[in-house]
């Protein structure tokens, strides 16, 4: 492996349990920093669905030092951009204004005030967003699909909440959630940019060193089971296309089959261009759609993701598309991909991962992922060998273990 792929990453764990990560990206004049705390889907009370998302959306609506407009102006004045999310936030900007930008990020993530008027305004905006999603058959189908798969598990709830749950949330709920869960232990702050990593760690230590608090006690989440049998639901809406989701519960990122399955995904349904089987068949040969995909690894995270096949097509092609997916799922379970087909995918994966290392935000996210999932910072050097060692029969076996064509949830929304 070429030395140019050897990333220089430095790490420091603070006494609070917060881990700082610094990635060296010497060829750019910009930097990015992400805060990602240990906040889990189950931490949101069941009757407060949408709370974690609302907290993330309101982080930049006013802090102990700035009101919403003042904070936005401070960020824009230094040429940066910043946004909050349910686990912290991200700032990116010119390297020349890194120090100011990091201070603003800390202020937004750790000192939000959640002013009543702003919270109510953001709530109203999310209400509008939920209604727009209700207009969008793809979102409608996706939400129902998750619900069908996850059931009562926290991941089955719509992340934005519902009109009813959102309406009940008050600024004091946001403050309580922030107090309870925005804790340093188990969290990460990762920055990438041209600054030498040890110096960058010193700077991050100065900014985040005073972030203290006891570790939070997370609420354990139940496991999600496969559906007993296949089921099929259609939600009619007056539109041109119908959006079909088909799948079942998937795997965690730490699952030992992850890499074999990522090869399977590329053969089956997430390959680049129209090289995957489903896009070759359903788009390229049959012309059924503009958008089609199928895969299990993209959604694998700390909690199990889903195996999801998706197509947007005309209503008269709905069944043909579903049958097409089923044929390909059964095929990849019963016969190994040809050595050439697998080699093509390996060539792609071993050559393409370097593109994930160009942007600072990707580098910061990579450092967090490598630590959070125990991949090790030398993961990039090992990855090509891991991929090359996988055999066609391993792909078939993994497909047989993880794809369940007789226990699929099919949900569609749109034209009938």
């Amino acid at each position, binding site marked *: 492996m070429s030395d140019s792929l050897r990333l220089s990453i430095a790490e420091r764990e603070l006494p609070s349990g917060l881990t700082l990560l610094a990635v060296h990206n010497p060829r750019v*004049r910009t930097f990015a920093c992400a805060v990602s705390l240990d906040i889990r889907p189950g931490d949101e009370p069941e009757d407060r669905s949408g709370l974690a998302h609302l907290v993330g959306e309101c982080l930049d609506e006013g802090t102990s030092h700035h009101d919403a407009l003042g904070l936005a102006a401070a960020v*824009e004045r230094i040429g940066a951009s910043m946004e909050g999310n349910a686990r912290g936030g991200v700032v990116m900007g010119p390297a020349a204004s890194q120090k100011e930008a990091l201070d603003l990020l800390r202020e937004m993530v750790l000192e939000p005030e959640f002013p009543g008027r702003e919270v109510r305004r953001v709530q109203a905006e999310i209400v*509008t967003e939920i209604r727009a999603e209700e207009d969008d058959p793809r979102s409608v189908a996706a939400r129902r699909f998750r619900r069908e798969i996850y059931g009562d598990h926290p991941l089955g709830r719509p992340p934005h909440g519902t009109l009813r749950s959102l309406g009940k949330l008050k600024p004091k709920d946001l403050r309580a959630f922030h107090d309870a869960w925005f804790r340093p232990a188990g969290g990460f702050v990762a920055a990438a940019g041209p600054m030498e990593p040890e110096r960058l760690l010193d700077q991050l230590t100065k900014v985040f060193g005073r972030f203290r608090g006891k570790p939070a006690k997370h609420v354990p989440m139940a496991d999600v089971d496969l559906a007993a049998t296949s089921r099929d639901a259609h939600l009619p809406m007056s539109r041109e296309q119908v959006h079909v989701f088909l799948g079942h519960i998937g795997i965690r990122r730490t699952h030992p089959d992850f890499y074999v399955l990522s090869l399977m995904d590329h053969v089956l349904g997430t390959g680049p*261009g129209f090289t995957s089987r489903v896009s070759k068949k359903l788009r390229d040969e049959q012309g059924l759609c503009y958008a089609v995909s199928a895969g299990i690894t993209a959604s694998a995270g700390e909690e199990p993701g889903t195996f999801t096949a998706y197509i*947007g097509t005309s209503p008269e092609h709905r069944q043909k598309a579903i049958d097409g997916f089923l044929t390909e799922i059964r095929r990849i379970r019963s016969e190994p991909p040809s050595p050439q087909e697998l080699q093509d995918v390996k060539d792609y994966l071993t050559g393409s991962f370097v593109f994930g290392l160009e942007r600072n935000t990707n580098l910061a996210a990579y450092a967090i992922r490598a630590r959070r999932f125990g991949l090790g910072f030398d993961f990039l050097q090992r990855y090509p060998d891991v991929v090359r060692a996988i055999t066609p029969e391993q792909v078939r076996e993994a497909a047989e273990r993880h794809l369940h064509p007789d226990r699929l949830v099919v949900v569609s929304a749109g034209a009938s």
Partner: protein
Amino acid sequence: MSERDGGIETAMLPDVEIVELENGFRALLVERGPLPVVASLLWYRIGARDEKTGETGVSHFLEHMMFKGTDRFPKGQIDLLTSKMGGSNNAFTDNDSTAYYFAMAADRWETALEIEASRMRECLLDPREFASEKNVVLEELAMGEDDPWRPLYQATESLIYQVHPYHHPVIGWRQDLERLSVQQMRDYYARHYGPNRAFLVVVGAIDKARTAARIRELFGSLPRASEREEPIREPVPVGERRACLRTPHSVTRLCIGFPTCRMGERDDYALDVIAHDLGNSKNSRLYRRLVLKEELVTEVSVMNETRQDPGAIFFLFELRDGASLARVEAIVREEIGKQIEEGVGKKDLERIRAQIRSSFLFQDEAVLDLAMKLARFEAGTPEGFRTLATVLPTYDSLTQKELREAAAKYLDFDRAAIVTAVPAAAKAPSRKGRAPARKAEGARRKRR
């Protein structure tokens, strides 16, 4: 160079080697490491602007067909080779251009050049592939029709341009697409695709001399296509134009467009600053007033879309539940009036300049972004990519007077196109409003 920008101006223009061939082909080469990646971008000066009535959508449809095989690279090979080389490829078509790009590992990227050279004149345009891909394009069209923003944007654009080809959607009109024959597409391809209508940008870990030699070898003998024709000019509107769309969505939306200038003209820079001051940030006039103060809309976006021929500036709004369209429009008129009268505040101007400066900086992080930046200026401005050297000084040199004059000249409601999209179920246009999932993406159509 000022201290504040940390030397950004000098570095805006990378070291570019130019390769010029006798057949009119031109290539811009930028060597950049240390990551072993290369972006190759082939940009054709062909787009919806070049289409005649009856063949609308052919540029975009042809872009799809360019992946369906050539004499040398049969069907499926382009995507397969790209992926085997660890790369990705894609393409887009807009009003003025069609662009094809590859991002690849540095030790194997030259296949991209071979593919581009081959499909410049030798695309197969097989009738069976044409028929099957037509369905894909029609599905893409249907997807756009279901989108809450696209029909609104397109209706506004069609109102602004009554005779100029910008009147037509880039994807084309459904009936034209349905009727389009493979022969029409072959004629269009033969007429327009050639080295004199294209240029190439390569950025990444390349050997410039070797790359230049390879380009000469591959593209040097390709015959010219016909030169680009000037389309009919759009007359200046003599009054406001309005339309109302009834949509299946439950959210009320508003789009206001004004015809503007060409890309790279001094007024274009002024319009960028004005667009920032009016929309696109929390501190902008329209956001402060409509979202924060009056709580009438959930999202404001302003797009300064300058083009080869005079472009347009679009204002897009998504109304909140129960907000009145008339009230929103009245406030937009009022705030634009204030913009014309007051110009851009001193502090606001500094903030906007900082945002513009760093938006250019971010485009240097990835090789493909840098290639796109160079290509956009090469295609769209009279001085080509060299314009980049003067972009930031030009923004900095705009005076308050110029900003006020540009606002007054272009944001004139006697030339406005105003389109509302209201729920089909609603009786009055001011009924319920709902919010944004995605912003309109402008006129660009991507392959996927």
